[in-house]
């Protein structure tokens, strides 16, 4: 069974069909790319997947469960975590606390235990600290764990966002332009990290990206979106050589 199955998804904003008849199937463990020109509706699909927008049509199945139209919070609990195109970190929290916030639902203790510093507080906080540092190490951020998130350089902020999303223990990770604003060295490093995450966390990853080197380097399959509709989908190499795709990107 596919991990993610979207059928005929659609949404309109004031008469404009932003996404129309969008279908995609992603198998478990796949590294899948969603590409297309600016304004094609890629981020809108992420927003539909995570419950920021409610679709007008279509269904979204995650691991066989229908999550169409559910609330953002419930969708995260069902197993989808994401990053944002315009980085959305908790800027006045430390790097460590950003990740610990991601561990919120998997590491519960009561507010009262927190205020009264009951034994459970120390126990769970310790587990959270260890888990968070472990995650930060993957992204080479453990040395900056006490830095405020807003003081991190741009590339590291993007990585921290991925770490925070991973902390929620998702089945599916959505990355919205993870390489935006990175230099070629950072991008190459990021590609390794994404592969590492897929392999070591048993993760399925859907990413939006404009950097074709990253897309062709790590994505196994691609879907090309144009004007809210699927232009073509299939194996990365095939899709990138499709004359229709080249036309959509470069014009006639």
């Amino acid at each position, binding site marked *: 069974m596919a991990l993610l199955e979207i059928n005929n998804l659609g949404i309109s904003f004031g008469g404009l069909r932003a996404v129309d008849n969008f279908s995609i199937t992603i198998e478990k463990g796949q590294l899948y790319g969603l590409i297309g020109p600016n304004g094609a509706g890629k981020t809108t699909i992420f927003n539909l997947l995570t419950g920021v927008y409610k679709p007008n049509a279509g269904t979204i199945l995650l691991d066989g469960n229908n999550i169409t139209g559910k609330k953002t919070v419930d969708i995260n609990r069902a197993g989808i975590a994401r990053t944002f195109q315009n980085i959305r970190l*908790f800027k006045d929290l430390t790097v460590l606390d950003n990740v610990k*916030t991601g561990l*919120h639902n998997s590491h519960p203790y009561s507010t009262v235990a927190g205020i009264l510093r009951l034994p459970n507080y120390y126990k769970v906080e310790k587990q959270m600290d260890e888990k968070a540092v472990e995650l930060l190490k993957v992204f080479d951020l453990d040395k900056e764990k006490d830095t405020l998130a807003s003081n991190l350089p741009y590339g590291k902020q993007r990585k921290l966002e991925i770490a925070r999303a991973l902390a*929620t223990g998702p089945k599916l990770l959505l990355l919205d332009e993870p390489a935006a604003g990175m230099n070629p060295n950072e991008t190459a490093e990021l590609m390794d990290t994404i592969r590492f995450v897929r392999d070591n966390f048993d993760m399925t990853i859907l990413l939006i990206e404009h950097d074709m080197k990253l897309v062709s380097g790590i994505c196994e399959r691609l879907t090309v979106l144009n004007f809210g509709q699927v232009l073509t989908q299939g194996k990365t190499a095939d899709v990138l050589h499709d004359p229709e795709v080249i036309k959509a990107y470069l014009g006639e």
Partner: protein
Amino acid sequence: MEKSTAKKFHIDKTFKTNLITYSIVIAAFIIVQILISAGQVSSLMKGLLVPLCIYSIMAISLNLTVGILGELSLGHAGFMCMGAFASSIFSISMMDSIPSAGVRFFFAILVGAAAAAAAGIVVGIPVLRLRGDYLAIVTLAFGEIIKNVVNVLYLGKDSNGFHFSMKNAMALKMEKSGTIILNGAQGITGTPKNSTFAIGVILTLITLFIVLNLINSRSGRAIMSVRDNRIAAESIGINITKYKLMAFTISASLAGVAGVLYSHNLSSLTATQKNFGYNQSIMILVFVVLGGIGNIRGSMIAAVILTLLPELLRGLNAYRMLIYAIILIVMMIFNWSPKLIDFRKRYFHLNRAKKERV
């Protein structure tokens, strides 16, 4: 090995900062006690000791809403009003049932906190759906409503039990032997004067304990994540309504505790524009902003200094509030003007660079 020491340092750091905050309060208490026993404290200053605790608690609790939750509330005095009236009614009606003043006051504090928390939930559920300035004006509206409604309530007690009216004292239809507890705009008279400086300091410490520990816990992180980025918080599964309401309610109940201290420090209690109106809420907000948004210790210190300032300026008589206003404006511009912040940074760095060269 290296890892574990690093982690210990992290926990110790917040613990150390918190310890300093508690120590400041305890040290201030001890110093004041020494000064009192040496006869160095004027009766005027003695009268200010409990209000200092009241305003500290108000400032700390409001900072939870403004600094930690990140929502501007202009109705904090309304919750103080709830706590004050609920606890006074409790104390007066329990005067015979609970003869021990200490026990009665202890329960009065709980009643005040619970009443204000209840008001916090009732206000919070609709209000927290709004954003920014709209939220601010609605909290102001709720604060004014609480104050206004308290002024038309009448409550009396006789051998048949409690009587309640919103018209006037006559409408209570009580027996001759009955006593009026809450008399509309005339408020409540005869609340036992249980508030002392020592109790005020203890309550301030408890408030600090609750707020500081909350901030450095799972729920505190959730609250701050909502403040820093609502959409991201939702995306990682944080129930934003729950944590907004939690912060707002705890903040309200602590304001209620301040209200208990307030009402048990006066023999007669009325709800006026001055003590429970938006002016008071704004006054508390001034403490929070000047002390540092999100800086719990700072807001407490600002509350103390700004409460003492008009008294210290008393020698200047008619001009003191004028000077207070000017100081406030100048301090705000000095602290917040982007140009001045730049200038200070440059000057500071210049100094440091010079030192390093030497």
